[in-house]
């Protein structure tokens, strides 16, 4: 990364909380980024995956004779060629019950989804590999596909059901609460199957360095250090002999950077064939092979008193996991339960998740996993409570919110293996701020006027509670070189969210240097021993605080040493733009960090000092997560003829504790809204009854364009900094997405004047046309 000197000579040292331009952008706008497809190694082979065209069946024979004779083919593998390789393991310890459901690298005798790898071709070029792959023929005896997670379970294998596990969490006397309720509100709700679908498809290059006996995976993402451990375990190699390298990453959203069959296959092939092996996924493959997400069916019940207060909440849901359990285990279903109560006080709760397999592409996490789903369910329920009791939607929310005086608030639930303890928040305050800013009350009048003119227009609201900053730890090393440049080596990862800039801003502010003189290293496993990466909105919280710790240590070391040289107590010194000087006397004696770095270079004195160079490590530990929260507000118009939904206004208020760079936070929120809108209105992986995927291109799987995404209004709130870390940070990556399905549903109900009409996502024109037709038929019936 080269940093261009900005035209202005203003030094950017006090940059925490400032909208400074990103360090990442320069190579990217020049077309000089290096994404995995842009990298090639001499003498590399190209891998092409042969995928099952059948959703469920038994492989009787794979005929690759003709393919083997095709030009440029070096090898073709089926399961028999790699039978010694085990199933792909979970990233984190998971329930024993899930073990039999893991995916093999290549299907052995059973195929379980369309797109499942059944053979791989290695050839001299991508074109030749694809030619040969087309000649591989698999004979598959079809079995009935199991496509409905709500239907009775089927058999995954002899003696093993398609329901590996039923997750359950809760507290309090459920029957008692429902028996004493003023009324019970009950809903059946579902969320469609959609996913991250980043603009860059997946890719991987396996390269075995025989000279040093090191296995390399290029194109790593998300959790490179975690994945190194998994890879080392898988191939029975020392960690030191397995290295993962992150390049530029074209969007992650949860789906990229988990280990898939293809990642292991390029590595295995590079060792066996003795040449680098490159695999680049195409979009059709992506839409049938990369993790899908979201699809759940909920039956939720609330017991309420006459004022609309929730006395108890009970949710039973069916989670459609698809064909295998991948690296996440049952995490999404578990998160759904742990986070479902959201920002509300729920005295009694029970969540039961039926985690079930079907013959669809396997599922895992996608931006705000379990919370996009759970927020839709919970907020639909709150709207229903309001409708049933004839109360205002916002008033019911207000009455149920956890008051800030109750923080920290222990939920008696777990999520991601830690106890849910809400760290801080002023939920009611932000609700008020956002409805004032949105002009909610004024808007009601406008809506009434427009409705009188025959328009279907309405406003909707959803509140969300997110989680971020998953621990347990992160380390960072900050080093200053003799020129005064700074290197920050992290165990973090970037998926394009602006990680380098945020880390540099924290380091610059702490150490007193221009952020543009800082180079941030991430996703390189040969540079750091410990780390996790970028998932669960953890990067800025965990790695950011580790940067702060390491930079503080460097600052202390620099001041300690400078105090001897400048003959002034360290506490009277300050570092401004890389120069140590006495506070308030810039004309006095000074020394630069670069000079100090030279002074502190390794030598006999260093031994006495106990440090080599101007370089320190820093750690941050967390045993609890932080909990960002916020409000989504929408104004929509429904076209009565076509059933199309137009989002006229959208606002998100998101409290992130403290925003390192509000520009980046807003970017995250707006981008999250766009993805959330996709799931609310357009995106769905559809399947035929026979298990054939029907969403294999961008004409069938509809991603919002500039036409569909409104000019999102964002309130970046900092009302409740987290008490759990020195910087007060909470994650900002997911809250923009979390509440969209819920808020749009609320607004569409309001627009068509049928409370509770929307029970499933996405809200397609066909669904709306049917609802409007019913409405017309009923009103005609009433009037005649």
């Amino acid at each position, binding site marked *: 990364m080269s940093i261009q000197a900005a035209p202005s000579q203003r030094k950017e040292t006090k940059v925490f909380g400032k909208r400074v*331009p990103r360090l990442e*952008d*320069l190579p990217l706008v*020049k077309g000089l980024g290096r994404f995995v497809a842009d990298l090639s190694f001499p003498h590399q082979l190209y891998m092409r995956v042969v995928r099952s065209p059948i959703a469920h069946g038994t492989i009787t024979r794979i005929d690759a004779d003709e393919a083997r004779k095709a030009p440029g083919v070096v090898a073709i593998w089926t399961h028999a060629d790699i039978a010694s390789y085990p199933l792909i393991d979970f990233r984190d310890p998971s329930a024993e019950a899930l073990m039999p459901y893991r995916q093999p690298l290549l299907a052995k005798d059973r195929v379980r989804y369309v797109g499942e790898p059944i053979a791989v071709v290695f050839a001299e070029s991508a074109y030749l590999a694809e030619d040969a792959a087309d000649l591989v023929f698999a004979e598959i005896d079809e079995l009935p596909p199991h496509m409905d997670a709500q239907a009775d379970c089927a058999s995954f294998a002899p003696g093993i059901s398609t329901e590996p596990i039923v997750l359950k969490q809760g507290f309090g006397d459920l029957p008692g609460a429902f028996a004493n309720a003023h009324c019970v509100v009950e809903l059946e709700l579902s969320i469609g199957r959609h996913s991250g679908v980043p*603009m860059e498809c997946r890719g991987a290059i396996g390269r075995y360095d025989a000279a040093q006996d090191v296995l390399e995976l290029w194109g790593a993402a998300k959790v490179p250090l975690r994945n190194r451990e998994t890879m080392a375990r898988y191939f029975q190699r020392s960690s030191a002999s397995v290295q993962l390298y992150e390049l530029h990453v074209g969007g992650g959203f949860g789906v990229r950077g988990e280990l898939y069959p293809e990642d292991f296959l390029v590595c295995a092939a590079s060792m066996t064939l003795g040449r680098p092996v490159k695999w680049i996924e195409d*979009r059709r493959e992506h839409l049938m092979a990369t993790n899908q997400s979201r699809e759940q069916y909920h039956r939720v019940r609330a017991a309420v008193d006459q004022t609309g207060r929730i006395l108890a909440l009970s949710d039973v849901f069916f989670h459609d996991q698809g064909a295998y359990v991948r690296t996440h285990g049952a995490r999404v279903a578990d998160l759904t339960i742990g986070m479902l109560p959201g920002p509300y006080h729920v005295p009694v709760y029970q969540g039961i998740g039926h985690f079930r397999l079907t013959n669809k592409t396997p599922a895992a996490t996608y931006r705000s996993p379990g919370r996009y789903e759970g927020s839709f369910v919970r907020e639909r329920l709150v709207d229903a409570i309001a409708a049933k009791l004839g109360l205002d939607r916002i008033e019911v929310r207000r009455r149920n919110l956890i008051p800030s005086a109750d923080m920290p608030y222990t939920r008696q639930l777990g999520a991601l293996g830690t106890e849910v303890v809400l760290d801080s928040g002023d939920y009611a305050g932000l609700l008020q701020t956002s409805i004032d800013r949105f002009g909610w009350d004024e808007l009601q009048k406008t809506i009434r006027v427009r409705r009188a003119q025959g328009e279907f227009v309405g406003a909707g609201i959803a509140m969300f509670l997110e989680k971020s900053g998953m621990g347990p730890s992160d380390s960072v090393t900050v080093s200053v070189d003799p020129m005064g440049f700074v290197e920050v080596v992290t165990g973090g990862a970037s998926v*394009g969210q602006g990680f380098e800039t945020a880390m540099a801003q924290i380091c610059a502010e702490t150490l007193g240097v221009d952020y543009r003189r800082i180079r941030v290293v991430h996703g390189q496993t040969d540079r750091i021993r410990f780390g996790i990466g970028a998932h669960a909105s953890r990067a800025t919280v965990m790695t950011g605080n580790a940067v702060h710790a390491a930079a503080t240590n460097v600052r202390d070391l620099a001041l300690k040493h400078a105090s001897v040289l400048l003959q002034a107590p360290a506490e009277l010194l300050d570092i401004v733009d890389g120069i140590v000087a006495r506070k308030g006397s810039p004309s006095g004696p000074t020394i630069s960090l670069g000079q100090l770095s030279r002074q502190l270079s390794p030598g006999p004195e260093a031994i006495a000092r106990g440090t080599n160079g101007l370089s320190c490590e820093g750690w941050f530990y967390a045993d609890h997560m932080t909990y960002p929260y916020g409000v989504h507000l929408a104004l929509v118009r429904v076209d009565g003829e076509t059933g199309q939904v137009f989002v006229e206004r959208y606002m998100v208020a998101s409290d992130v504790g403290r925003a390192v760079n509000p520009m980046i936070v807003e*970017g995250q929120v707006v981008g999250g809204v*766009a993805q959330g809108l996709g799931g609310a209105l357009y995106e769905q992986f559809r399947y035929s009854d026979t298990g054939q995927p029907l969403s294999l291109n961008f004409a069938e799987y509809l991603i919002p364009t*500039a036409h569909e995404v409104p000019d999102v209004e964002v309130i970046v709130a900092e009302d409740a900094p987290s008490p759990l870390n020195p910087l007060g940070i909470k994650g900002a990556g997911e809250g923009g997405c979390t509440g969209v399905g819920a808020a749009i549903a609320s607004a569409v109900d309001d627009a068509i004047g049928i409370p509770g009409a929307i029970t499933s996502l996405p809200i397609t024109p066909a669904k709306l046309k049917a609802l409007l037709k019913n409405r017309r038929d009923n009103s005609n019936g009433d009037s005649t």
Partner: protein
Amino acid sequence: MTDEVDISLSVNGRTYRFKAEPRRTLADALREDCGLTGTHLGCEHGVCGTCTVSMDGQPVRACLMFAVQAQGAKIVTVEGLASGSELHPLQKAFIEHHALQCGFCTPGFLMLAWTELAKNPNPSDEELTDILSSNLCRCTGYKNIFSAVKAAANEMRNGAPK
């Protein structure tokens, strides 16, 4: 497999000569044969616009053309926008307006905007939304891309022409 043919492309004012099969796409030729990997592939079926390049003044999906078809045309890719170390106003505006996150779709959007602004230097908001809806972005929600292109269009009209 078919025999390779001689292909010659004019890209960013330079001539590239190489041998490739007639079925080689323009996008693959730019990336592999010319070494210009700034043109990215996001779908290879002409929807996402990530591979957009300018060809004789028109925005073109390089994934939907063969390299042999592009012979004789003047092609501009993202690598041709900046003049040395001096960024094009569009590139500057993308940085200033935070119009990119992962940066994968950025070259396609830059080339789409660059080509269209040459045809119509002053698009209305509606026209600009129409233009930008040609391409997909999964990170930004488009808001900042719109602002960046609008700002760059203003700058390009009011001086600092490049």
